[in-house]
């Protein structure tokens, strides 16, 4: 807490700067505040594990988690697990997104297709996807095939929903303008509908990326054959190795963050290009 008080002091000596930044949502000078809670938690964790108040074998020290992490990285176990998980995730994501784009466009452009397939699709969407895992495991086994099927389903659903929504919600004014210019059907699709639907499509793909990552973990927990980050966590849990579990959680968090950040970066690129 000592250094936090120091910063507070520095803050107060610069009132002019503060006032100027007061209206901004996130002043850079207040960034340190975000670090307070994690540092406190870390300090608490450290002190509890150092003093040995609790003799529980589950209370591992931060150093131990660090060493486990180094060891997992050095031995290559982390890379094996991570590459297996990510390869699965990306395969399922690609398949699901491709299928979702096709099905979503069909539902978006054709009223008939929407009427025929829409209600069934929406009902299917309501059933928690994980409930299908036991059935998928019977049909496709416990290996990579079953996992990829499950992941692509997880990626498919948000893409279909957002693509069809995006296409259907293109404003009628734009279509009227296109009619005035006597655009052909193809021109309407390429120059009017697709650009207008793009943000929604992107949201769908972005969600697909996140969902398929969640589904990767779920698939690895429930379809236990093979290696992956999920298996690493389950193994750690079964062997009562809290250090391995905590390290796995950190890895999951970092990968989730990286996927998130990557998608956002791409989104910004795409839309920056559009606005020019």
């Amino acid at each position, binding site marked *: 807490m000592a250094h936090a008080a120091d910063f507070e002091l520095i803050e107060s000596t610069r009132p002019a700067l503060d006032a100027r930044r007061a209206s901004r949502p996130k002043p850079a000078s207040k960034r340190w505040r975000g670090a307070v*809670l994690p540092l406190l938690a870390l300090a608490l964790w450290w002190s509890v594990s150092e003093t040995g108040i609790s003799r529980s074998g589950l209370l591992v020290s931060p150093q131990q988690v660090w060493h486990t992490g180094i060891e997992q990285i050095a031995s290559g176990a982390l890379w094996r697990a991570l590459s297996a998980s990510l390869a699965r995730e990306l395969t399922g994501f690609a398949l699901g997104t491709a299928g979702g784009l096709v099905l979503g466009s069909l539902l978006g452009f054709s009223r008939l297709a929407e009427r025929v397939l829409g209600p069934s699709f929406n009902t299917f969407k309501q059933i928690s996807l994980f409930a299908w*895992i036991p059935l998928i495991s*019977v049909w496709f086994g416990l290996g990579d095939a079953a996992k990829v099927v499950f992941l692509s389903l997880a990626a498919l659903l948000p893409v279909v929903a957002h693509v069809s929504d995006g296409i259907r919600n293109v404003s009628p004014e734009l279509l009227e303008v296109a009619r005035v210019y006597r655009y052909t059907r193809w021109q309407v699709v390429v120059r009017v509908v697709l650009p207008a639907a793009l943000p929604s499509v992107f949201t769908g793909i972005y969600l697909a990326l996140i969902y398929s990552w969640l589904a990767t973990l779920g698939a690895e927990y429930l379809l236990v054959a093979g290696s992956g980050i999920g298996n690493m966590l*389950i193994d750690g*849990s079964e062997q009562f190795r809290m250090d391995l579990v905590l390290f796995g*959680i950190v890895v999951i*968090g970092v990968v989730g963050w990286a996927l998130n950040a990557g998608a956002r970066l791409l989104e910004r690129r795409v839309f920056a290009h559009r606005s020019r």
Partner: protein
Amino acid sequence: MSDTAIEHNPAHPVPRATDSRRAWTESARALRWQILPFIVPVLLFSLWLGGSSFGWIAPQVLPAPHLVLETLLDLARSGDLWSNTWISLSRVLVGFAGGAALGLLLGSGLGLSRTLESYVSPSFNALVQIPVLGWLPFLLLLVGIGEPLKYLLIGQAALVPVTLSTLQGFRQAPTAYYEVANVFRYSRWQLITEVVFPAALPTIATGVRLAFTKAWLALVVVELVASSQGLGYLNVYGRQLFQLDLVMAAVIVVGAIGYAIDRLLNALEARLTRGARRAF
């Protein structure tokens, strides 16, 4: 060009044919339109029925519909269905209520105080990156396999969307509202209860509905992985015994309950939102 404009202009509707034959075709078309959504389910179901009764599909791969129905009725008669459903529902309700209440509190705290937000938000955002499934092995070691594990995981699943939507809702009240409140010299409390909260309500309601969907998903997952009771357990138990009729029955019940509650919350949300709009 001008005549096409008139053709599409709703102010000049084409005169409706009073011809009875035209009316008949029109109602036939309407009927066909009504039937369309049922084509796919009926087709799938008859494939399932035909496939299993003609022996195209092995019962180990997909049990016959009547078998699934029988199992469902058996479960209902023996009381297993009700006890397991009740266990699942009580888990989801306790976890969801706890998580949503905490989320509402945390979200309003963050929404009202930018200072608190600057302290808590980065940690919160970092923790949010870790899905429910990531916490599962950790909490399994920490609190064991009992009920608290389910409550915690379901609660965490519900907490995140409620917190985020509450925060967003609190931030999005139009500045004009604040100006009006200023003119009326509202106290801080009045500002919160009469301006900020009503304006945030629709967003919060959406968040709560989303939170319930997530909570139900988390319930299914945690019961699949670590449970000896509940609908998810029924599902995975059927899989272990290779009793696919039991698996299908469990999937149907899980889907039906999830769907029913989503509809219910949807109706509730529509109601709340309408009420909020009337308030202004």
